[in-house]
Protein backbone atom coordinates (compact mmCIF):
# COMPACT_ATOMS: atom_id res chain seq x y z
CA UNK A 1 0.00 0.00 0.00
CA UNK A 2 1.36 3.39 -1.01
CA UNK A 3 0.63 6.88 0.26
CA UNK A 4 -0.68 7.91 -3.12
CA UNK A 5 -4.45 8.42 -3.12
CA UNK A 6 -6.38 6.55 -5.80
CA UNK A 7 -9.98 7.25 -4.85
CA UNK A 8 -10.92 10.49 -3.14
CA UNK A 9 -14.47 11.38 -2.10
CA UNK A 10 -14.87 14.90 -0.83
CA UNK A 11 -18.05 16.04 0.93
CA UNK A 12 -20.25 13.82 -1.19
CA UNK A 13 -24.00 14.19 -0.78
CA UNK A 14 -26.68 12.06 -2.38
CA UNK A 15 -30.43 12.08 -1.96
CA UNK A 16 -33.07 9.56 -2.95
CA UNK A 17 -36.04 11.94 -2.87
CA UNK A 18 -36.19 13.21 0.71
CA UNK A 19 -33.82 10.48 1.93
CA UNK A 20 -30.28 11.71 2.56
CA UNK A 21 -28.36 8.52 1.67
CA UNK A 22 -24.88 10.00 1.59
CA UNK A 23 -24.40 12.80 4.09
CA UNK A 24 -21.21 14.77 3.56
CA UNK A 25 -19.08 11.69 3.05
CA UNK A 26 -15.33 12.20 2.65
CA UNK A 27 -13.08 9.21 2.17
CA UNK A 28 -9.64 8.64 0.69
CA UNK A 29 -8.47 5.24 -0.51
CA UNK A 30 -4.76 4.84 -1.19
CA UNK A 31 -3.28 2.72 -3.98
CA UNK A 32 -3.12 -0.86 -2.82
CA UNK A 33 -5.34 -0.24 0.16
CA UNK A 34 -8.21 -2.55 1.14
CA UNK A 35 -11.07 -0.63 2.69
CA UNK A 36 -13.99 -2.56 4.11
CA UNK A 37 -17.23 -0.63 4.53
CA UNK A 38 -19.61 -1.96 7.16
CA UNK A 39 -22.78 -0.70 8.75
CA UNK A 40 -26.46 -1.48 9.22
CA UNK A 41 -28.83 -1.90 6.26
CA UNK A 42 -29.80 1.36 4.63
CA UNK A 43 -26.74 3.15 5.93
CA UNK A 44 -25.59 4.10 2.42
CA UNK A 45 -22.75 1.59 2.06
CA UNK A 46 -23.86 0.26 -1.31
CA UNK A 47 -24.64 3.74 -2.60
CA UNK A 48 -21.15 4.84 -1.61
CA UNK A 49 -19.64 1.91 -3.47
CA UNK A 50 -21.78 2.52 -6.57
CA UNK A 51 -21.06 6.25 -6.54
CA UNK A 52 -17.35 5.58 -7.08
CA UNK A 53 -17.93 4.42 -10.67
CA UNK A 54 -20.97 6.64 -11.06
CA UNK A 55 -23.53 3.88 -11.36
CA UNK A 56 -25.17 6.18 -8.82
CA UNK A 57 -24.72 9.87 -9.68
CA UNK A 58 -24.20 12.17 -6.69
CA UNK A 59 -25.91 15.47 -5.92
CA UNK A 60 -22.96 17.43 -4.58
CA UNK A 61 -19.33 17.04 -3.63
CA UNK A 62 -16.52 15.61 -5.74
CA UNK A 63 -15.19 12.15 -6.46
CA UNK A 64 -11.70 11.88 -7.87
CA UNK A 65 -10.23 8.71 -9.34
CA UNK A 66 -6.51 8.49 -10.02
CA UNK A 67 -6.14 12.26 -9.90
CA UNK A 68 -9.04 13.04 -12.23
CA UNK A 69 -12.61 13.98 -11.29
CA UNK A 70 -15.29 11.51 -12.41
CA UNK A 71 -16.51 12.40 -15.92
CA UNK A 72 -20.19 13.24 -16.20
CA UNK A 73 -21.40 10.91 -18.97
CA UNK A 74 -20.47 9.39 -22.30
CA UNK A 75 -17.17 7.92 -23.43
CA UNK A 76 -14.90 9.44 -20.76
CA UNK A 77 -17.13 7.88 -18.09
CA UNK A 78 -17.12 4.53 -19.90
CA UNK A 79 -13.32 4.68 -19.99
CA UNK A 80 -13.17 5.37 -16.28
CA UNK A 81 -15.52 2.49 -15.52
CA UNK A 82 -13.30 0.17 -17.52
CA UNK A 83 -10.52 0.97 -15.04
CA UNK A 84 -12.67 0.28 -11.99
CA UNK A 85 -13.88 -3.28 -11.66
CA UNK A 86 -17.19 -3.92 -9.96
CA UNK A 87 -18.55 -7.07 -8.37
CA UNK A 88 -22.26 -7.11 -7.55
CA UNK A 89 -24.31 -8.83 -4.90
CA UNK A 90 -26.37 -10.60 -7.55
CA UNK A 91 -23.33 -11.49 -9.75
CA UNK A 92 -24.95 -10.04 -12.89
CA UNK A 93 -23.13 -12.35 -15.27
CA UNK A 94 -24.37 -11.89 -18.83
CA UNK A 95 -27.01 -14.63 -18.95
CA UNK A 96 -26.84 -15.22 -22.73
CA UNK A 97 -23.04 -15.61 -22.86
CA UNK A 98 -20.82 -18.47 -21.72
CA UNK A 99 -18.51 -18.10 -18.75
CA UNK A 100 -15.52 -17.57 -21.04
CA UNK A 101 -17.41 -15.03 -23.18
CA UNK A 102 -18.40 -13.17 -20.02
CA UNK A 103 -14.76 -12.73 -19.12
CA UNK A 104 -13.61 -11.92 -22.67
CA UNK A 105 -16.32 -9.45 -23.60
CA UNK A 106 -14.93 -6.37 -21.85
CA UNK A 107 -11.37 -6.55 -23.17
CA UNK A 108 -12.59 -7.29 -26.71
CA UNK A 109 -15.49 -4.84 -26.98
CA UNK A 110 -14.30 -2.05 -24.71
CA UNK A 111 -10.51 -2.24 -25.05
CA UNK A 112 -10.56 -3.61 -28.62
CA UNK A 113 -7.93 -6.20 -27.72
CA UNK A 114 -7.20 -9.20 -29.95
CA UNK A 115 -9.50 -12.15 -29.10
CA UNK A 116 -6.66 -14.71 -29.10
CA UNK A 117 -4.64 -12.86 -26.47
CA UNK A 118 -7.74 -12.11 -24.41
CA UNK A 119 -8.70 -15.76 -24.51
CA UNK A 120 -5.43 -16.85 -22.92
CA UNK A 121 -5.73 -14.22 -20.22
CA UNK A 122 -9.38 -15.09 -19.58
CA UNK A 123 -8.59 -18.79 -19.27
CA UNK A 124 -5.77 -18.16 -16.82
CA UNK A 125 -8.06 -15.88 -14.78
CA UNK A 126 -10.74 -18.58 -14.74
CA UNK A 127 -8.14 -21.12 -13.67
CA UNK A 128 -7.04 -18.76 -10.98
CA UNK A 129 -10.55 -18.54 -9.52
CA UNK A 130 -10.95 -22.29 -9.97
CA UNK A 131 -13.52 -22.38 -12.77
CA UNK A 132 -11.32 -23.08 -15.80
CA UNK A 133 -13.09 -26.38 -16.44
CA UNK A 134 -16.52 -24.68 -16.66
CA UNK A 135 -15.53 -22.13 -19.30
CA UNK A 136 -18.11 -23.22 -21.87
CA UNK A 137 -21.08 -23.39 -19.52
CA UNK A 138 -23.69 -20.68 -19.11
CA UNK A 139 -24.04 -18.71 -15.86
CA UNK A 140 -27.32 -20.41 -14.90
CA UNK A 141 -25.51 -23.78 -14.88
CA UNK A 142 -23.12 -22.66 -12.13
CA UNK A 143 -23.62 -22.33 -8.38
CA UNK A 144 -23.77 -18.88 -6.81
CA UNK A 145 -20.25 -19.12 -5.47
CA UNK A 146 -18.93 -20.14 -8.87
CA UNK A 147 -20.84 -17.33 -10.58
CA UNK A 148 -19.41 -14.78 -8.19
CA UNK A 149 -15.89 -16.04 -8.82
CA UNK A 150 -16.52 -15.67 -12.56
CA UNK A 151 -17.73 -12.13 -11.89
CA UNK A 152 -14.43 -11.40 -10.15
CA UNK A 153 -12.52 -12.88 -13.11
CA UNK A 154 -14.61 -10.73 -15.47
CA UNK A 155 -13.67 -7.61 -13.50
CA UNK A 156 -9.99 -8.65 -13.39
CA UNK A 157 -9.89 -9.24 -17.15
CA UNK A 158 -10.08 -5.47 -17.61
CA UNK A 159 -6.88 -5.16 -15.55
CA UNK A 160 -8.54 -2.55 -13.34
CA UNK A 161 -6.78 -0.09 -11.05
CA UNK A 162 -9.30 -0.78 -8.32
CA UNK A 163 -12.08 -3.22 -7.54
CA UNK A 164 -15.40 -2.38 -5.93
CA UNK A 165 -17.32 -5.14 -4.17
CA UNK A 166 -20.96 -4.47 -3.36
CA UNK A 167 -21.92 -7.12 -0.79
CA UNK A 168 -20.33 -9.88 -2.88
CA UNK A 169 -21.31 -12.73 -0.54
CA UNK A 170 -24.74 -11.61 0.64
CA UNK A 171 -26.66 -13.59 -1.97
CA UNK A 172 -24.66 -16.78 -1.44
CA UNK A 173 -25.47 -19.95 0.43
CA UNK A 174 -23.28 -20.08 3.55
CA UNK A 175 -21.10 -22.91 2.28
CA UNK A 176 -20.11 -20.86 -0.76
CA UNK A 177 -19.08 -17.71 1.04
CA UNK A 178 -15.63 -19.06 1.83
CA UNK A 179 -14.60 -19.79 -1.77
CA UNK A 180 -15.40 -16.20 -2.79
CA UNK A 181 -13.69 -14.67 0.23
CA UNK A 182 -10.60 -16.79 -0.50
CA UNK A 183 -10.29 -15.23 -3.95
CA UNK A 184 -10.82 -11.75 -2.50
CA UNK A 185 -8.24 -12.34 0.22
CA UNK A 186 -5.63 -13.39 -2.29
CA UNK A 187 -6.34 -10.28 -4.37
CA UNK A 188 -5.96 -8.14 -1.27
CA UNK A 189 -2.61 -9.78 -0.50
CA UNK A 190 -1.39 -9.05 -4.02
CA UNK A 191 -1.92 -5.35 -3.51
CA UNK A 192 -5.16 -4.75 -5.42
CA UNK A 193 -6.92 -1.57 -4.34
CA UNK A 194 -10.30 -2.70 -3.04
CA UNK A 195 -13.41 -1.12 -1.59
CA UNK A 196 -15.52 -3.88 -0.10
CA UNK A 197 -19.02 -3.43 1.24
CA UNK A 198 -19.71 -6.53 3.29
CA UNK A 199 -21.16 -8.10 6.39
CA UNK A 200 -18.27 -10.58 6.62
CA UNK A 201 -16.51 -9.41 9.75
CA UNK A 202 -13.94 -12.19 9.44
CA UNK A 203 -12.84 -10.84 6.08
CA UNK A 204 -12.74 -7.31 7.51
CA UNK A 205 -10.52 -8.47 10.36
CA UNK A 206 -7.92 -10.36 8.39
CA UNK A 207 -7.87 -8.73 4.94
CA UNK A 208 -8.69 -5.06 5.44
CA UNK A 209 -6.21 -2.25 5.97
CA UNK A 210 -9.01 -0.09 7.24
CA UNK A 211 -12.59 -0.52 8.34
CA UNK A 212 -15.08 2.24 7.61
CA UNK A 213 -18.29 2.25 9.61
CA UNK A 214 -21.33 3.96 8.13
CA UNK A 215 -24.71 4.74 9.65
CA UNK A 216 -27.59 6.89 8.35
CA UNK A 217 -25.59 8.01 5.34
CA UNK A 218 -22.72 9.28 7.43
CA UNK A 219 -19.22 7.98 7.68
CA UNK A 220 -19.17 7.56 11.44
CA UNK A 221 -15.84 5.98 12.22
CA UNK A 222 -12.79 4.57 10.48
CA UNK A 223 -9.83 2.68 11.90
CA UNK A 224 -7.58 -0.30 11.25
CA UNK A 225 -9.61 -3.48 11.83
CA UNK A 226 -7.86 -4.61 15.03
CA UNK A 227 -8.44 -1.22 16.61
CA UNK A 228 -12.00 -0.89 15.32
CA UNK A 229 -13.18 -4.27 16.52
CA UNK A 230 -11.40 -4.03 19.88
CA UNK A 231 -12.18 -0.40 20.70
CA UNK A 232 -14.97 1.14 18.66
CA UNK A 233 -15.04 4.81 19.54
CA UNK A 234 -18.62 5.76 18.78
CA UNK A 235 -21.78 4.51 20.42
CA UNK A 236 -23.30 3.60 17.10
CA UNK A 237 -20.36 1.44 16.12
CA UNK A 238 -20.37 -0.23 19.55
CA UNK A 239 -24.09 -0.84 19.27
CA UNK A 240 -23.71 -2.30 15.75
CA UNK A 241 -20.84 -4.56 16.75
CA UNK A 242 -22.65 -5.78 19.86
CA UNK A 243 -25.54 -6.86 17.68
CA UNK A 244 -23.50 -8.81 15.16
CA UNK A 245 -20.67 -10.18 17.25
CA UNK A 246 -22.61 -11.58 20.21
CA UNK A 247 -23.72 -14.71 18.38
Amino acid at each position, binding site marked *: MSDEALIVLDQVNKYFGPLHVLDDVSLTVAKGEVVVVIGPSGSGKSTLCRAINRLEPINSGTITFDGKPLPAE*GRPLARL*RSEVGMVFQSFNLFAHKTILQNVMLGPIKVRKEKPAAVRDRAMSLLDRVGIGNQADKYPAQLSGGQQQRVAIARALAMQPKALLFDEPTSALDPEMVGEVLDVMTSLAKEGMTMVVVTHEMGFARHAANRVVFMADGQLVEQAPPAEFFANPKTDRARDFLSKILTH
Partner: protein
Amino acid sequence: MDVFSDPLNRDVYITGFLWILKLTLAGGVGALVLGVVLAAMRVSPVPVLRGFGTAWVNIFRNTPLTLIIFFCYFGLFSTLGFSVVDDIDLNNFWLGVIGLSVYTAAFVCEAIRSGINTVPAGQAEAARAIGMTFIQTLTIIVLPQAGRAVIAPLGSILIALCKNSTIVGTIGLMESSNAMKDLINANGNAVIPIFLVFAGTFAIVLIPTGYGFGWLANRLAVKR
Protein backbone atom coordinates in the same frame (compact mmCIF):
# COMPACT_ATOMS: atom_id res chain seq x y z
CA MET B 1 -61.52 -28.32 -57.86
CA ASP B 2 -61.75 -28.11 -61.65
CA VAL B 3 -60.83 -24.44 -61.36
CA PHE B 4 -57.26 -25.27 -60.34
CA SER B 5 -56.70 -27.86 -63.06
CA ASP B 6 -56.58 -24.97 -65.53
CA PRO B 7 -52.90 -23.92 -65.74
CA LEU B 8 -53.87 -20.28 -66.22
CA ASN B 9 -55.89 -20.28 -62.98
CA ARG B 10 -53.12 -22.12 -61.19
CA ASP B 11 -50.77 -19.43 -62.37
CA VAL B 12 -53.01 -16.70 -60.89
CA TYR B 13 -53.09 -18.61 -57.60
CA ILE B 14 -49.32 -19.15 -57.47
CA THR B 15 -48.47 -15.58 -58.49
CA GLY B 16 -50.84 -14.30 -55.81
CA PHE B 17 -49.17 -16.24 -53.04
CA LEU B 18 -45.68 -15.44 -54.34
CA TRP B 19 -46.53 -11.75 -53.88
CA ILE B 20 -47.75 -12.50 -50.35
CA LEU B 21 -44.52 -14.36 -49.62
CA LYS B 22 -42.38 -11.51 -50.95
CA LEU B 23 -44.42 -8.86 -49.13
CA THR B 24 -44.14 -10.82 -45.89
CA LEU B 25 -40.40 -11.36 -46.21
CA ALA B 26 -39.52 -7.81 -47.28
CA GLY B 27 -42.03 -6.24 -44.89
CA GLY B 28 -40.82 -8.50 -42.09
CA VAL B 29 -37.19 -7.51 -42.56
CA GLY B 30 -38.13 -3.83 -42.81
CA ALA B 31 -40.38 -3.99 -39.76
CA LEU B 32 -37.79 -5.87 -37.70
CA VAL B 33 -34.98 -3.43 -38.47
CA LEU B 34 -37.20 -0.39 -37.99
CA GLY B 35 -38.82 -1.84 -34.88
CA VAL B 36 -35.48 -2.56 -33.19
CA VAL B 37 -34.25 0.96 -33.97
CA LEU B 38 -37.51 2.42 -32.62
CA ALA B 39 -37.27 0.32 -29.46
CA ALA B 40 -33.68 1.52 -28.98
CA MET B 41 -34.92 5.09 -29.37
CA ARG B 42 -37.68 4.55 -26.84
CA VAL B 43 -35.25 3.40 -24.15
CA SER B 44 -32.50 5.90 -25.02
CA PRO B 45 -31.54 8.71 -22.65
CA VAL B 46 -32.15 11.30 -25.41
CA PRO B 47 -35.62 12.89 -25.01
CA VAL B 48 -35.93 13.78 -28.72
CA LEU B 49 -35.34 10.17 -29.78
CA ARG B 50 -37.71 8.88 -27.10
CA GLY B 51 -40.36 11.31 -28.32
CA PHE B 52 -39.84 10.26 -31.93
CA GLY B 53 -40.20 6.57 -31.05
CA THR B 54 -43.31 7.18 -28.97
CA ALA B 55 -44.90 9.33 -31.69
CA TRP B 56 -44.19 6.68 -34.33
CA VAL B 57 -45.81 3.94 -32.28
CA ASN B 58 -48.84 6.04 -31.41
CA ILE B 59 -49.41 7.22 -34.96
CA PHE B 60 -48.90 4.00 -36.89
CA ARG B 61 -50.27 1.52 -34.36
CA ASN B 62 -53.55 3.43 -34.26
CA THR B 63 -54.02 4.07 -37.97
CA PRO B 64 -55.81 1.43 -40.06
CA LEU B 65 -53.35 -0.35 -42.32
CA THR B 66 -55.62 0.25 -45.32
CA LEU B 67 -55.22 4.00 -44.82
CA ILE B 68 -51.44 3.68 -44.56
CA ILE B 69 -51.25 1.61 -47.75
CA PHE B 70 -53.58 4.08 -49.49
CA PHE B 71 -51.36 6.92 -48.37
CA CYS B 72 -48.30 5.15 -49.74
CA TYR B 73 -50.03 4.93 -53.12
CA PHE B 74 -52.08 8.13 -53.39
CA GLY B 75 -49.85 10.27 -51.15
CA LEU B 76 -46.30 9.13 -51.66
CA PHE B 77 -46.66 7.94 -55.24
CA SER B 78 -49.49 9.82 -56.97
CA THR B 79 -49.20 13.17 -55.22
CA LEU B 80 -45.58 13.43 -54.11
CA GLY B 81 -44.28 11.53 -57.12
CA PHE B 82 -42.24 9.08 -55.04
CA SER B 83 -41.55 5.89 -56.93
CA VAL B 84 -39.05 3.09 -56.39
CA VAL B 85 -39.00 1.47 -59.83
CA ASP B 86 -40.65 2.06 -63.20
CA ASP B 87 -42.43 -1.30 -63.40
CA ILE B 88 -45.92 -0.59 -62.07
CA ASP B 89 -46.42 -3.93 -60.29
CA LEU B 90 -42.99 -3.83 -58.72
CA ASN B 91 -43.51 -0.22 -57.69
CA ASN B 92 -46.81 -1.10 -56.04
CA PHE B 93 -45.04 -3.97 -54.32
CA TRP B 94 -42.41 -1.64 -52.84
CA LEU B 95 -45.01 0.94 -51.83
CA GLY B 96 -46.78 -1.92 -50.06
CA VAL B 97 -43.57 -3.00 -48.37
CA ILE B 98 -43.05 0.56 -47.10
CA GLY B 99 -46.58 0.72 -45.69
CA LEU B 100 -46.38 -2.74 -44.09
CA SER B 101 -42.94 -2.04 -42.58
CA VAL B 102 -43.90 1.32 -41.16
CA TYR B 103 -47.08 -0.12 -39.63
CA THR B 104 -45.69 -3.42 -38.35
CA ALA B 105 -42.56 -1.73 -36.93
CA ALA B 106 -44.78 -0.07 -34.31
CA PHE B 107 -45.84 -3.50 -33.05
CA VAL B 108 -42.31 -4.93 -33.24
CA CYS B 109 -41.06 -1.93 -31.28
CA GLU B 110 -43.55 -2.52 -28.48
CA ALA B 111 -42.82 -6.26 -28.36
CA ILE B 112 -39.08 -5.62 -28.11
CA ARG B 113 -39.63 -2.94 -25.51
CA SER B 114 -41.58 -5.38 -23.35
CA GLY B 115 -38.69 -7.81 -23.90
CA ILE B 116 -36.25 -5.21 -22.64
CA ASN B 117 -38.29 -5.05 -19.44
CA THR B 118 -37.67 -8.77 -18.87
CA VAL B 119 -33.89 -8.22 -18.81
CA PRO B 120 -32.84 -7.59 -15.20
CA ALA B 121 -31.41 -4.11 -14.60
CA GLY B 122 -28.24 -5.74 -13.27
CA GLN B 123 -27.34 -6.94 -16.78
CA ALA B 124 -27.10 -3.39 -18.11
CA GLU B 125 -25.38 -2.25 -14.92
CA ALA B 126 -22.72 -4.92 -15.26
CA ALA B 127 -22.19 -3.92 -18.89
CA ARG B 128 -21.79 -0.27 -17.97
CA ALA B 129 -19.50 -1.22 -15.11
CA ILE B 130 -16.99 -2.84 -17.47
CA GLY B 131 -17.00 0.32 -19.58
CA MET B 132 -19.50 -0.40 -22.34
CA THR B 133 -21.17 2.60 -23.94
CA PHE B 134 -24.96 2.92 -24.07
CA ILE B 135 -25.04 1.57 -27.63
CA GLN B 136 -22.80 -1.38 -26.75
CA THR B 137 -24.83 -2.19 -23.64
CA LEU B 138 -27.98 -2.14 -25.73
CA THR B 139 -26.75 -4.09 -28.76
CA ILE B 140 -24.47 -6.63 -27.06
CA ILE B 141 -26.21 -7.28 -23.76
CA VAL B 142 -29.80 -6.03 -23.58
CA LEU B 143 -31.31 -6.44 -27.07
CA PRO B 144 -30.08 -10.02 -27.65
CA GLN B 145 -31.70 -11.07 -24.38
CA ALA B 146 -34.80 -8.97 -25.02
CA GLY B 147 -35.19 -10.41 -28.52
CA ARG B 148 -34.97 -13.96 -27.25
CA ALA B 149 -37.65 -13.22 -24.68
CA VAL B 150 -40.14 -12.02 -27.32
CA ILE B 151 -39.70 -14.59 -30.10
CA ALA B 152 -43.23 -15.94 -29.61
CA PRO B 153 -44.95 -12.53 -29.83
CA LEU B 154 -42.72 -11.64 -32.81
CA GLY B 155 -44.03 -14.82 -34.44
CA SER B 156 -47.60 -13.58 -33.91
CA ILE B 157 -46.66 -10.26 -35.45
CA LEU B 158 -45.16 -12.06 -38.46
CA ILE B 159 -48.34 -14.09 -38.91
CA ALA B 160 -50.44 -10.92 -38.71
CA LEU B 161 -48.08 -9.26 -41.21
CA CYS B 162 -48.49 -12.15 -43.64
CA LYS B 163 -52.29 -11.84 -43.57
CA ASN B 164 -52.14 -8.03 -43.56
CA SER B 165 -50.10 -8.11 -46.75
CA THR B 166 -53.33 -8.94 -48.63
CA ILE B 167 -54.26 -5.29 -48.08
CA VAL B 168 -51.63 -4.34 -50.66
CA GLY B 169 -54.18 -5.74 -53.12
CA THR B 170 -56.17 -2.54 -52.60
CA ILE B 171 -53.54 -0.60 -54.58
CA GLY B 172 -53.67 -3.03 -57.47
CA LEU B 173 -51.07 -5.70 -56.75
CA MET B 174 -52.32 -9.12 -57.89
CA GLU B 175 -51.65 -10.75 -54.54
CA SER B 176 -53.72 -13.64 -53.20
CA SER B 177 -56.94 -11.80 -52.32
CA ASN B 178 -57.05 -10.09 -55.73
CA ALA B 179 -56.24 -13.42 -57.33
CA MET B 180 -59.09 -15.01 -55.43
CA LYS B 181 -61.48 -12.24 -56.47
CA ASP B 182 -60.52 -12.74 -60.13
CA LEU B 183 -61.00 -16.49 -59.94
CA ILE B 184 -64.35 -16.11 -58.22
CA ASN B 185 -65.52 -13.59 -60.81
CA ALA B 186 -64.60 -15.96 -63.60
CA ASN B 187 -65.88 -19.12 -61.88
CA GLY B 188 -69.12 -18.24 -60.13
CA ASN B 189 -69.97 -21.95 -59.75
CA ALA B 190 -66.92 -22.68 -57.58
CA VAL B 191 -66.92 -19.90 -55.01
CA ILE B 192 -66.69 -22.15 -51.97
CA PRO B 193 -63.84 -24.38 -53.28
CA ILE B 194 -61.84 -21.33 -54.37
CA PHE B 195 -62.36 -19.69 -51.00
CA LEU B 196 -61.34 -22.86 -49.15
CA VAL B 197 -58.18 -23.29 -51.20
CA PHE B 198 -57.04 -19.71 -50.53
CA ALA B 199 -57.91 -19.80 -46.85
CA GLY B 200 -56.39 -23.27 -46.54
CA THR B 201 -53.14 -22.13 -48.10
CA PHE B 202 -52.76 -19.45 -45.45
CA ALA B 203 -53.61 -21.92 -42.69
CA ILE B 204 -51.25 -24.61 -43.96
CA VAL B 205 -48.33 -22.19 -43.99
CA LEU B 206 -49.15 -20.15 -40.89
CA ILE B 207 -50.09 -22.84 -38.39
CA PRO B 208 -46.65 -24.50 -38.56
CA THR B 209 -45.08 -21.02 -38.50
CA GLY B 210 -46.75 -20.36 -35.16
CA TYR B 211 -45.58 -23.69 -33.72
CA GLY B 212 -42.11 -23.09 -35.16
CA PHE B 213 -41.82 -19.80 -33.33
CA GLY B 214 -43.05 -21.44 -30.12
CA TRP B 215 -40.38 -24.11 -30.46
CA LEU B 216 -37.73 -21.49 -31.22
CA ALA B 217 -38.81 -19.41 -28.21
CA ASN B 218 -38.26 -22.39 -25.92
CA ARG B 219 -34.98 -23.32 -27.50
CA LEU B 220 -33.49 -19.85 -27.38
CA ALA B 221 -34.90 -18.80 -23.99
CA VAL B 222 -32.21 -17.28 -21.78
CA LYS B 223 -31.83 -19.39 -18.64
CA ARG B 224 -31.52 -17.36 -15.46
